[in-house]
């Protein structure tokens, strides 16, 4: 515990501090790029990318071992990872465009095949009985304990660069994710933007391999934006929150890992991120489930209040206990069950509003059914002013028309 707080406050030694800061930057960058992977609905592709790094890492290890005498050179391993992940992405792309298979089928095939090749190569490496191969397992589940200063620095700088690139391209990525067709028709090279997005993701996967491991690196890109989505409806805010959650979660996870060197860093980071997700899911005021429950409670009250007032307007008895208690609490009904003056006047207003809503439903059934607020809020708060005006004009002549025989029937 003491060690954890020491790591958390960056006082557990220069190396640990560096690892924690590096992890935080990695988390921020992956959270930011993850927003667009999520909005582009390509989270599965990112899974293929990460799994496709394994054969590259193993092959690079073997090659480095044969030619340089030592396989444990991080830059060489990362180049191998990037190359094989790149081939994996191109394979998915090729299958998708040249066959009738869907993207998820292509991903499933590529992901498992690349991973299988990687596992076979790892077994071969183990049978080669070379010193230093133990470090390779760290690429599966992540390990920061043996990390060198230079490695931590590389990760921090690369993560910073990817994060910067995402922020600078935020506009174009938003456009790509929201409306690909419009982006293309406006002159943007959609294919190239997509490639840039994947390339940045690939960058994150590769630099995060060592810290988080290839099985879990993609969680670093997916969980922060998913958690952040509970809090906001704006892209720039979403990017900021996702980067924040990614940074904080990775930082805490890395600190935990520093205090418990036997635990896999990747697993710890993902568990911390998951706790952010659960908290967001529960308590977010925008899209959280507690807020949704509260909203439902309010919704039920609004419906009861409105139906109660309509009953008053139509001189019908209000029988349901919940409706009666809501009316009484609002001062619309006296203790004797009779409507108050306030209740009467409010009932008239609601009645007119309801007439407009009913007319709207009659005239535009499709539209009104798609509308979430139909007859829940005053119509003027929901529909544009010109629509309401048309409805009001339509409502008034109805009275006149009914009074004039032969001036056309209803509707």
């Amino acid at each position: 515990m003491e060690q954890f707080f020491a790591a958390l406050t960056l006082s557990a030694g220069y190396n640990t501090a560096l690892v924690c800061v590096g992890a935080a930057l990695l988390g921020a960058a992956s959270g930011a790029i993850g927003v667009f992977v999520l909005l582009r609905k390509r989270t599965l592709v990112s899974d293929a990318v990460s799994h496709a790094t394994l054969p590259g890492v193993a092959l690079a290890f073997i090659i480095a071992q044969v030619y340089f005498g030592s396989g444990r050179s991080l830059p060489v391993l990362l180049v191998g990872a990037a190359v094989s992940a790149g081939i994996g992405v191109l394979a998915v792309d090729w299958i998708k465009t040249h066959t009738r298979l869907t993207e998820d089928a292509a991903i499933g095939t590529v992901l498992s095949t690349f991973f299988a090749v990687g596992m076979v190569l790892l077994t071969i490496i183990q049978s080669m009985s070379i010193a230093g191969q133990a470090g390779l397992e760290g690429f599966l589940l992540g390990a920061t304990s043996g990390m060198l200063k230079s490695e931590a620095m590389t990760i921090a700088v690369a993560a910073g660069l990817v994060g910067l690139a995402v922020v600078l391209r935020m506009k174009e990525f938003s456009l790509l994710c929201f409306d690909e067709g419009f982006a293309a028709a406006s002159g943007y090279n959609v294919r190239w933007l997509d490639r840039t997005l994947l390339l940045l993701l690939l960058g994150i996967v590769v630099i995060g391999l060592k810290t988080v491991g290839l099985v879990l690196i993609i969680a670093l890109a997916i969980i922060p934006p998913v958690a952040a989505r509970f809090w906001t409806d704006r892209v720039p805010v979403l990017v900021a929150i996702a980067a924040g959650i990614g940074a904080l979660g990775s930082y805490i996870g890395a600190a935990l890992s520093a205090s418990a060197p036997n635990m896999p860093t990747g697993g710890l980071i993902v568990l911390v991120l998951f706790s952010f997700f659960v908290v967001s899911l529960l308590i977010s005021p925008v899209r959280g489930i507690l807020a949704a429950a509260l909203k439902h409670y309010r919704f039920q009250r609004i419906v009861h209040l409105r139906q109660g007032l309509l009953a008053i307007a139509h001189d019908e008895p209000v029988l349901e206990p919940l409706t009666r208690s809501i009316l009484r609490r609002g001062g619309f009904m006296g203790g004797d069950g009779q409507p108050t003056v306030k209740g009467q006047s409010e009932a008239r207003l609601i009645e007119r509003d309801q007439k407009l809503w009913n007319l709207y439903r009659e005239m535009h059934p499709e539209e009104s059914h798609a509308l979430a607020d139909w007859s829940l809020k005053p119509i003027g708060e929901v529909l544009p002013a010109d629509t309401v005006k048309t409805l009001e004009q339509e409502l008034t002549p109805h009275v006149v028309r009914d009074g004039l025989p032969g001036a056309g029937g209803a509707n």
Partner: protein
Amino acid sequence: MHDRSSSGLHLLHDTSAAHAVMPEDLPFTVQGMTVAYHHKPVLWGVSYSAPKGCLTAIIGPNGAGKSTFLKAALGLIPKLSGETKVFGEPIEKALKRIAYVPQRSAVDWDFPATAIDVVLMGLYGQIGWFRWPSRKHRQKALDCLKSVGMQDFANRQIGQLSGGQQQRVFLARALAQDAEVYLMDEPFAGVDAATEKAIVAVLRQLVADGKTVLVVHHDLETVRDYYSHILLLNGQHVADGPVETTFTPENLQRAYGGRLASTQLDGLSEAAGS
């Protein structure tokens, strides 16, 4: 090659009927366009030139390739043959002079954006890479929302808008682009009457400002009221020209075949007489 030559004839025929026109005066010209999905042709050697400064409806039965026509002409989907010229230039070089309004159902409206965010997307081309919308751009976006009657909804999350309101936002985004040619894919699909009116008013204003507007349209009954020209498709080019001379029962019969009941045809031709 064979479909190219036959469509070339089409074009020759079409332009020879008109007086001599310079290519840089033709706002939107498609030559010999053939598009296929999985080896099944959807459009076959279509050639067409949009009349400048006119409001044209693209009509035809379901599956006639109306939306495909716009998408392929813009280069959004691959085509087997054909090319699009905008004021005499290849379309890839003239996309800035074009505004495209996709079908509302083409996007996920749960996207984290407000109405004004979406309209600002129409200005991204002017804002440029690595820069952010300024106050001037926001004001312009607001003005565009105003011209479709949506200024009060600028900061509303787009998922909370009704279908008609979403369509108006799409239209506002196209207005923000300040284009010369507007291509719209079913802007009237599933919208309320007030929205339909608002859209028609905007289309008329665009034409009054000298813009060329092409609209994929479904409702035959309103064609006569809204448009001055039509392009009739049924996988091939059936007819195009002014509504008075082209929107005839004979042409409609050729495009729709048996799918249009004779009573419907009678109704439409009666409207022609009145």
